[in-house]
């Protein structure tokens, strides 16, 4: 546990010192997205990497958080700080209700069911024009405000988002190392064995699904209040797949892996922009190579790579 704490403190320092290297600029904006995506990837990883249940509809929960927050503040004039928790609770309850029937399904069938839920939510965003503004989106969402500070610049937003993200990281690490975390991994490995040691697998799966949805909704609300404009296009099937890719590339069942995956998949397109039309090919190619050569994800693949490099150079004392 002590080692986990030191790791977390190092990570927090790294995150908090980041902006001093950039002094604003476009990259800061991208790093805000890295924070939001990290939160989402961790949320999905709790479900996929720990409990072993797939979801192809998480963009839907992300969107619900954003839209609920947006509608409550824009249309009904709520304070964003009130809207965020209300949205999160509402999305959590919804996921809980959906979870009971669909988490009885396994593997491909669960993938299909969650895919369907994601698509339904997406259609609702598009079609309920009066409420959501339809395909043209919802604008004028207020920024968050705390003690007279309005979070309206990239640097301010960076600290805001990453404070939340770090809280989610800390929470998830604690959860993963607790009795519940062990039970989740037990359900993942063998549901029958988990049940015969007394884990109520069905309930636990629904609970982690709801928790994952709550964290996604929180990320969605933060997204809405930092962007001030949302449209359905950000919450479609593509984004669900992107989240899944982040979790797998980063490393299943690792909180810091989710950060690496989210950081890579968010930053890579920005760096590849200079390759013009070839960017998508390079991007795809890199993903294939990483999955082939780092099947455990970046979080396990990078240290292995270091070990290999140092060994071939004769530095055998490294590992």
């Amino acid at each position, binding site marked *: 546990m002590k080692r986990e704490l030191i790791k977390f403190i190092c990570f927090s320092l790294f995150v908090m010192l980041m902006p001093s290297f950039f002094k604003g600029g476009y990259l800061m904006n991208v790093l805000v997205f890295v924070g939001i995506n990290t939160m989402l990837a961790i949320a999905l990883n709790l479900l996929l990497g720990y409990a072993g249940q797939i979801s192809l509809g998480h963009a839907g929960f992300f969107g619900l958080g954003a839209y609920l927050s947006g509608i409550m503040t824009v249309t009904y004039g709520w304070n964003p700080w009130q809207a965020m928790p209300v949205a999160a609770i509402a999305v959590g309850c919804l996921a809980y209700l959906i979870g009971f029937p669909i988490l009885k399904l396994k593997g491909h069938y669960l993938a299909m069911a969650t895919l369907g839920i994601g698509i339904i939510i997406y259609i609702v965003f598009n079609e309920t024009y009066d409420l959501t503004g339809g395909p043209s989106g919802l604008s004028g969402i207020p920024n968050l405000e705390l003690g007279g500070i309005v979070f309206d610049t990239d640097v301010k937003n960076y600290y805001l988002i990453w404070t939340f993200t770090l809280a989610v990281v800390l929470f998830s690490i604690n959860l993963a190392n607790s009795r519940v975390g062990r039970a989740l991994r037990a359900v993942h490995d*063998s549901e029958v064995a988990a049940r015969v040691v*007394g*884990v109520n697998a069905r309930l636990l799966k629904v609970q982690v699904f709801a928790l994952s949805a709550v964290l996604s909704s929180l990320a969605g609300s933060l997204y809405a209040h930092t962007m001030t404009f949302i449209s359905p296009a950000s919450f479609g099937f593509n984004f669900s797949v992107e989240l899944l890719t982040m979790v797998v590339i980063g490393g299943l069942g690792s909180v810091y892996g989710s950060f690496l995956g989210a950081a890579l998949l968010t930053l890579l397109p920005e760096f590849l922009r200079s390759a013009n039309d070839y960017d998508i090919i390079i991007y795809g190619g890199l993903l294939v190579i990483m999955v082939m050569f780092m099947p455990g994800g970046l979080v396990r693949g990078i240290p292995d790579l270091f070990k290999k490099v140092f060994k071939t150079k004769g530095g055998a004392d490294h590992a």
Partner: protein
Amino acid sequence: MLRLKNINTYYGKVHALKNISLHLGQGEIVTLIGANGAGKTTILNTISGVTPASAGEILFNKEPVSALQPDRIVKLGISQVPEGRQVFKPLSVEDNLELGAYLRYRSREWKATIHKDMKQVFELFPRLEERRKQLAGTMSGGEQQMLAIGRALMANPKLLLLDEPSMGLAPLVVQEIFRVLERLRQESGTTILLVEQNAKAALKLADRGYVLETGKVILEGAADELMENAEVKRAYLGKDKKEMWER
């Protein structure tokens, strides 16, 4: 202690258990023998609530338990060692054992008692103590079986359901495991229901036995009587094969 009355269990449309009735007394070791598909595993899964019965009654210490979820049944004192061991492979030996005590965490003194129980498991299976930090999936089959039994014991069961503990193990390891079962009965009075393919070893250990065929009990009796029974000998002990062919 445990009584099954006219239990019927279905897998979809397949009628797996047909009017099974059996009973276990306090401190008894009872074995279920029978060929593949006879319904031995299904009986254990029905008792533990994993595949609930569609008709019939199960009484545990005179309390009906057939409608309960598996976690409630574990709480009452019935632990199952599932078929094929099913240890949690990516977790360490210690984590596996702690999960065995999953339902006992909430009480206040859990840390001390669980530590004490883990010591007891290590005493029964010293090999597990040597490997307490090792991942369960990297251990040999015999060690995994020991871990699976140890994990079930961590729930402090009054009744232990064992599903083919000898499966795929070397005879010496099987002997070691059976010796531990004997010891458990003597030292802590644990009642044991043992499902086995290895009928000879099972009947040697058990007090009584039931012989199953296609979901029905076809024979029951004291273990030594069953061992002498001509039909059991022919079908499950592999004796007198020649005579049967010559007939």
